[in-house]
C-alpha cells in the first residue's frame, strides 16, 4: 500500500497544469461550501441570538399546564410567588437577568379611534435586557418611576397616529371576567424588526397590568431568564429542573429551543439550500475528477500494462488510482479550506449590506463565520467525492488487457 500511495502522490504532481486546474475546481467548490456554510451559520446565530435577546430569553418558566392549556384560560395558570422565585433564580450561576411577563390583550383607544392590541406587562428594568434588538425609535423606554408610561410597536403607533405624550385608554377583561380600563400615556415607540410584532404589540409596566387585571398577589404569567451565554442553556435548565423537583414547585420549564419557532424554520430552510449547494458542488467535483482520472489513465495506459506485466494484480491497479483520487481530493480539500477561510475573512471585512429578509424590516451586513464543522465537512466532501469519482476510472484501468496496454503508444 505504501508503494501505491507513493505512486499516487507522485502522479498527482506529475501533470502539474492539469492537477492545478482540477485542484482549483475542487478548491473553489469546497470554498463555496465553506463561505455559504459560514454565511448560513451566521444567520442561524443571528436569528438565534435576536430571538433570544429580543423575545424569548434563554429559559422561561410557567405554571405547570400553561403551555398546554394556557391559551384558553391564561389566568388559570399564573405563577404566584414570583418575588421569592426571582430571588432564588437570580442566585444561579450563569443567570444574568430574571424578569417576568404578564400577557393581556384588549382594545386600545385614543377616544376617537379604537383598535385591538396584544400587550405584556413587563418589569421595565429586566425587560430592557431582553430588548436588545428592539430599538426605541421615539421617546424613551419603560421606566418604573413612570408606571403609566407605555411603549408601542412602530406599526401600531403609526396606524393610530399617536404621538409621544398622548393619552390612551386600555380596555381589558379582568381575571374575574369584568371589563376594566387603564389610562396610560405614550412614552415611547419601538421597532423590533419583526413586522407582525410591531403592528400589534405594546408594553406596560407589570404592576399596572396586575392592577388592571385585578391580581392581588403579584402574579405573573412567565418568568424569563437571560443567561451570560446561550451555550449554558442546558446546564441552567438542568439545575432549575432539579430545583423544581426538590422543592416540588408547580412549574414547567421551556428553553429557547422550544420557543424560537422561527429559528427552526430558518435552519430548516437554509439547511436545505445548503444541501442543494453541496450536491451541486459534489457533482461538479465528481465530473472534474472523473475527467482528470480518465485522461490520466489514457495517457498512462502503457505504464498500467507495465506494472501489470510485473505482476501487479488488478486490485493493486485499482488501489493506485483510487489513492490518486484521494490524494487529489485531499489537495483540493486543503486548497478549498485555505481559500474558503480567506474568502470568509475578506467578505466579512468588506461588509456587504443585504436587504431585509422576509418578515423583517431591517437589512443586515453579511458576516461569514469560520465554522470548524463546516471546514471539516467541506474537506470530507472533497475526499469522499474524489474517492467516488476515481472508482470507475480505476476499475476501467484494472480491466485493461495487459498485452493491449503494453502496445499502447
Amino acid at each position, binding site marked *: 500500500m505504501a*508503494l501505491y500511495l*507513493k*505512486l499516487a502522490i*507522485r*502522479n498527482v504532481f*506529475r501533470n502539474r497544469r492539469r492537477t492545478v486546474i482540477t485542484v482549483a475546481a475542487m478548491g473553489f467548490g469546497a470554498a463555496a461550501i465553506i463561505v455559504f456554510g459560514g454565511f448560513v451559520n451566521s444567520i442561524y446565530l443571528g436569528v438565534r441570538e435576536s430571538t433570544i435577546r429580543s423575545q424569548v430569553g434563554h429559559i422561561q418558566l410557567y405554571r405547570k399546564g400553561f403551555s398546554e392549556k394556557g391559551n384558553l384560560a391564561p389566568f388559570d395558570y399564573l405563577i404566584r410567588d414570583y418575588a421569592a422565585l426571582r430571588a432564588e433564580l437570580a442566585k444561579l450561576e450563569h443567570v444574568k437577568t430574571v424578569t417576568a411577563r404578564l400577557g393581556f390583550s384588549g382594545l386600545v383607544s385614543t377616544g376617537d379611534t379604537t383598535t385591538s392590541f396584544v400587550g405584556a406587562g413587563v418589569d421595565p428594568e429586566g425587560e430592557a435586557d431582553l430588548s436588545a434588538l428592539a430599538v426605541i425609535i421615539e421617546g424613551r423606554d419603560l421606566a418604573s418611576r413612570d408606571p403609566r408610561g407605555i411603549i408601542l410597536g412602530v406599526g401600531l403607533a403609526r396606524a393610530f397616529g399617536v404621538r409621544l405624550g398622548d393619552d390612551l385608554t386600555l380596555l381589558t377583561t379582568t381575571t374575574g371576567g369584568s371589563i376594566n380600563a387603564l389610562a396610560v400615556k405614550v412614552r415611547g415607540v419601538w421597532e423590533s424588526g419583526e413586522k407582525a410584532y410591531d403592528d400589534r404589540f405594546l408594553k406596560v409596566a407589570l404592576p399596572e397590568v396586575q392592577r388592571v387585571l385585578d391580581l392581588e398577589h403579584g402574579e405573573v404569567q412567565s418568568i424569563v431568564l437571560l443567561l451570560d451565554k446561550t451555550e449554558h442553556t442546558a446546564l441552567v435548565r438542568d439545575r432549575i429542573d432539579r430545583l423544581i423537583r426538590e422543592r416540588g414547585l408547580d412549574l414547567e420549564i421551556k428553553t429557547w429551543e422550544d420557543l424560537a419557532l422561527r429559528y427552526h424554520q430558518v435552519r430548516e430552510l437554509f439547511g436545505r439550500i445548503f444541501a442543494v449547494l453541496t450536491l451541486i458542488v459534489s457533482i461538479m467535483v465528481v465530473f472534474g475528477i472523473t475527467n482528470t482520472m480518465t485522461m490520466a489513465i489514457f495517457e498512462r495506459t*502503457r*505504464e498500467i*500494462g*507495465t*506494472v*501489470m*506485466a*510485473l*505482476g*501487479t*494484480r*488488478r486490485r*493493486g491497479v485499482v488501489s493506485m488510482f483510487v489513492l490518486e483520487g484521494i490524494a487529489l481530493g485531499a489537495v483540493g480539500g486543503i486548497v478549498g479550506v485555505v481559500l474558503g477561510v480567506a474568502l470568509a475573512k475578506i467578505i466579512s471585512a468588506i461588509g456587504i449590506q443585504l436587504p431585509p429578509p422576509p418578515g423583517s424590516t431591517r437589512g443586515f451586513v453579511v458576516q461569514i463565520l469560520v465554522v470548524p464543522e463546516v471546514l471539516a465537512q467541506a474537506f470530507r466532501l472533497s475526499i469522499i467525492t474524489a474517492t467516488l469519482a476515481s472508482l470507475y476510472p480505476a476499475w476501467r484501468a484494472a480491466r485493461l488487457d*495487459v*498485452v493491449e496496454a*503494453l502496445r499502447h503508444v
Partner: protein
Amino acid sequence: MIDRVVVKDVTKTYRLGTLTVTALAGVSLTVRTGEFLAVAGPSGSGKTTLLNLIGCLDTPTSGEIAIDGEPVSALSPGRRADLRASKLGFVFQTFNLIPVLTAYENVEYPLLIHRRGGNVATRVRAALEQVGLGDRATHRPPELSGGQQQRVAIARALVGEPALVLADEPTANLDSHTGHDIIELMRRLNREHGTTFVFSTHDPRIMQAADRVLEISDGRLL
C-alpha cells in the same frame, strides 16, 4: 535437468471484426534452464505473441505452455499476475520504466509486490551495481539515456532472481553500439547467474550472441 519452458502445439488467433487473424499456428518448443535463446523473425511474424504467451501476459487459443513443469495456460488473470511477479522478469523494447519513480524505486518495485527473503535495499543496490548504474540510483528515467534506462529495466527484471527473463526486442530502440552493450550485459548476467533468457530480435548481429536462434515466420517456427 528439467526444461524451464515447454510450449506444445500452441496457436493464437485474434478476431478483427469478422476476420480471424492467426498469429501463431501450432508452435512447439522447449527452453532449457540457463539457456540464452533468441527468437528471430520479421515484424508481424508472431515473435511478440510467442513471448507474451510464454510470459503469461496472454493465453493461447489452443495448446499448452508449462513453466518449470507447471501448466500456465488455464490460470486465472490473478494467478498469472502472481506467477509473473514470482517467476518472470520482463525487458521491453521501450524500456517501460515508471517515470515518477527513481532508478532505485523502479528496481525495487517487483520486490515490493512480491516479497522475497533478504534485505530489499541490499538486493536493489546489488542489481543496480550489476548493470553498472550504482551511481544513478536517485535519477528518474527522464534523466537517464536510453541505454541507461534499459539497464535499469534489466536490473528490475533480475532483482527478484526470476526463473526466466523475457526480453521483447530489447535493443530495437537503441543505437547499435548501445544495443550491443545491452546484449553483452544480458549475456554476462546469464552466464554469472544462470538466468534463463528468451529474447526476440530481428538484428542478425545480436542473434550471434545467442546459444540458439529460433526463426519464426507467419506464426510458424522454421
